[in-house]
């Protein structure tokens, strides 16, 4: 894969932890790759697995979902509910041979700017390794 491939990554960050974590990473000047496009959601439980499929169809190379650590959810168990869905989604993508590596979930709290930096760096590397998403990406056919 060519080195100059810069993946487009959609990141759904929970308002209470991960979004604040990303903020902290920013204010603390932790460098992370600029490939992510952040969408703030109120809870990782708000993220429907269809968001992931839709992003992949509409041209994302990867989808990152990040929420509070289990047990620390602002809404008590939103992320625990979400976890099951993502587990199933991951298994299904894997089963269909649809590069499950393009879909990643992580728990990042508001104080973990360093972890956020680490997660994004690792994920961008992982997606770069996989190359541009072309399996269900609608591309520029139209």
């Amino acid at each position, binding site marked *: 894969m060519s080195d100059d491939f810069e993946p487009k990554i959609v990141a759904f960050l929970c308002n209470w932890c991960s979004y604040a974590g990303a903020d902290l990473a920013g204010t603390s000047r932790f460098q992370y790759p600029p490939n992510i496009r952040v969408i703030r959601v109120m809870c990782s439980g708000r993220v429907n697995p269809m968001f992931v499929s839709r992003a992949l169809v*509409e*041209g994302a190379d990867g989808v990152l979902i990040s929420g509070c650590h289990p047990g620390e959810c602002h809404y008590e168990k939103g992320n625990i509910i979400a976890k099951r869905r993502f587990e199933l989604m991951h298994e299904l993508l894997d089963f269909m041979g649809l590069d499950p590596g393009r879909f990643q979930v992580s728990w990042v709290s508001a104080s973990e700017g360093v972890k956020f930096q680490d997660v994004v760096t690792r994920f961008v590397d992982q997606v770069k390794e996989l190359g541009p998403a072309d399996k269900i990406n*609608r591309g*520029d056919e*139209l």
Partner: protein
Amino acid sequence: MKVMDKTQLDKLFGAGYEVIAPVNTLGVVEYIKVTVPAQIEFDFYNSKKPAKSAFFPATEKMFDIKMQDRKAVSMDESLPEMKDTILFGIRPCDAGSLTYMDQLFNWEGFEDPYWNARREAVTVFTLGCSKVCPNSFCTSVGGGPKSKTNADVFVYEVGDKLVFEAITDKGSAALDKMGLEEATGAELEAAQNWEPAEPEVVDLDETPTKLDDRWPDEHWVDVSLRCLNCGICTFLCPTCHCFDIIDYKHRDKCARCRVWDTCQFDDYTVHASGHQPRETKQSRVRNRILHKFNYIPHNFDMFGCVGCGRCTSLCPVNIDLIETIQEVEK
């Protein structure tokens, strides 16, 4: 009449035409563009997807819309770029459906450029049916296994050989370019005297008039109770032509497309207000059957059904078209 061995199918490709032919993709026989003769399938009753998809694809772009600063600045018609094409091996019933579809897409002065562009570029090679398809009744609606309606060339399958009979000038021009041998002897005789088996005749002559007063719900409730409201019968019908127009934006490109739609779906008739005038099963089943056996006969003076029997064979809950009509007529 010309003759060709089935092993010489590459002559089809040699004449400078593109070829659309029946291909068995993972168990589904459909008409798609082929590049190698080996892809062409001969052993089938009728294709699952009707040949209408060669003229009226399931998804078709109608307009290219240019966007600037999130505003549409221009809209250009995107007509299919068609080279001369041979549509090889369509069954007489599918070819028969083109009579209605041609009129429909050119109805009362409204000409559909997409349909016509494809239709003009295509030379139809109809392949006679040597087997009777299950549930078919083509002879009862004006067709038949050797009907030459709309065929430019009629193809007889004689053992391992194919005998081509040119019907129109377009057809004979295509045959000339292919450089085939003249049919002689046994093959010619076999083609001329070919008498294929025909499906049983169902009496449908009176049906359009009998259905005139069958609008009220009570006639349709019992026959539609089983219906799932899926789109199999309509999507796979050679004379169903409904489409939905959608605008689709992808990054800075935008297109207006049309996709197959069906009267069996819930969202087909929904008004902008949210009102659904056709909200029950019986009204949808009624629309499908009355359209084919009552509205089209009145408007176009022909049956809206070519009798291919696909809707009955593929219906997952076994709603038999003929049985339904007979039930309603009672």
